[in-house]
């Protein structure tokens, strides 16, 4: 089992504020890992550090052994990390299918030699369209593929974002609150989908607020509070961890 993501001692400072303090985590191939924590704990900041949106002040991020600290987001994506956004960022003037097709950007890259072969670009694009449609079918969005992405209901928009990220064929899929704004049934359906994705060989790192969702589908959890990692382990361990209960779950009980 190889280590897809390894983040060591990540610290991110904004001015005088430490958004992340010395966070270390790793994700192995085929795992579903959850990152949880109260609002403002630094979960999205962690995602931004991993995907290159921010360059961590200190620490090192590596992907399958390659040091990717300080890389640009597009380089990191091209190398194998794909993400979704907490506040959905679909391309508003495109249809669902075209949104996914943008995700195919990395996959449809032609080598220098292929560039000069006539028809090669068309074949690449057509295959990509076929693949995009397959993915949309999987998520039950095939019928909607010619609708404008932002005209879909909220839950479906989140799914389109996931499909778009999957189109990159990432080595690690980072989902930022995939179930936010979904109702109970939709969340359950999403849980199943995430499971299926893993069975198809995807590795997934996700941020989520919905405790039941996380506890059901994740293999391991990392708990952030106030920018620092306070616990990690299986859902069972986290559930009974007194520090976590105090910092986070304590509010419910």
């Amino acid at each position, binding site marked *: 089992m190889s280590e897809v993501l390894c983040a060591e001692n990540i610290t991110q400072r904004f001015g005088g504020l430490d958004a992340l303090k010395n966070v270390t985590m790793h994700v192995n191939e085929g795992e579903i890992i959850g990152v949880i924590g109260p609002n403002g704990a630094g979960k*999205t900041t962690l995602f*931004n550090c991993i995907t290159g*949106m921010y360059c961590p002040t200190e620490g090192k991020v590596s992907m399958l052994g390659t040091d990717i600290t300080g890389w640009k987001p597009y380089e990191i994506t091209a190398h194998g990390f794909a993400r979704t*956004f*907490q506040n959905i960022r679909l391309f508003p003037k495109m249809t669902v299918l075209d949104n996914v097709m943008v995700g195919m950007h990395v996959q449809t890259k032609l080598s220098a030699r292929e560039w000069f072969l006539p028809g090669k670009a068309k074949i690449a694009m057509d295959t990509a369209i076929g693949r995009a449609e397959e993915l949309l079918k999987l998520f039950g969005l095939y019928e909607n593929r010619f609708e404008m992405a932002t005209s879909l209901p909220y839950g479906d928009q989140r799914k389109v974002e996931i499909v778009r990220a999957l189109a990159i064929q990432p080595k690690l899929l980072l989902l930022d609150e995939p179930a936010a704004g979904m109702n109970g049934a939709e969340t359950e359906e999403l849980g199943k989908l995430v499971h299926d994705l893993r069975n198809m060989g995807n590795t997934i790192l996700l941020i989520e607020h919905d405790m039941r969702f996380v506890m059901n589908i994740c293999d391991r959890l990392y708990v952030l509070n106030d920018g620092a990692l306070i616990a990690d382990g299986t859902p069972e361990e986290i559930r009974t961890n007194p520090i976590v209960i105090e910092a986070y779950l304590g509010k419910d009980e």
Partner: protein
Amino acid sequence: MLVQQIVNGFTIGSVYALVAIGFTMVFGVLELTNFSNSSLYMFGAYITFLFYTATGIHFFLAFGISIVLTGLLGYGIDRFALRQLRKKKAPKLSGLITTLGMSMVVDNAIMVFFGTDSKSFENFLDFGKIYIGSAVVTWTQIIILIAACILMITLSVITYRMKIGKAMGAIAQNQDAAKLMGIDTDKIISLTFIISGFLACIAGTMVAMYYRSIDTAMGSSIGIKIFAAAVLGGVGVLPGAVVGGLVLGIVETIVSAYISTGYRDAISFSILILVLLVMPNGLFGKKAINKV
């Protein structure tokens, strides 16, 4: 010699600053690049000219009428075009194109009415000149400077100290939220346009007196400079517009005095591009934070 150039630069710069303030106020509130601002500037000068020559009333009365009318024109542009666009939640670009169209209408209406030849304009601020060392400073220049300073200070007080200014800030942040807070957004926005009309008219008339002539190209020639001044200082920031205007004026006069008159605009604009390269938000602009 240098002192002389700086004085001249200050004078023309303060005029740029005045118009740029109006421009930047509208921008600050609406995030709208108002192309019609330079037309208001020309309109103001021509209306003053019209009332003074046609009716023979006292010059300052004509000036006053012109200020009111230019303010009204500014109001009209907002009321009859831009407000409708806001109601439709039209994209920002259509607002910009609308002001461009308005500017064409106003400019060409003036051209049709007055003809394209330049007209001589009497200088009513000609109270002689004084000598500071080797530099000659006319009273016109001093009065323009003083008037510009008074207006800038008044406007800064209004925007940064008074309730109306707070309302403008609120609208700039979020129009809908401002409306919910009980701010009459349309009224405040109209007021902004009226003020920018006032300023443009005052600046236009003062420049007309300074150069003792007006022509129909005066609007288009100042249009880019106002925009450049506002951007140089950081769009939406009043002191930025003032500094931007002054810097532009001084750079222009110094370049044309010591380097080349022909390349004046090219050099001063290149400086603008260089500044933007180093400071993408202008001298005083706030950094826009792109939240993920």
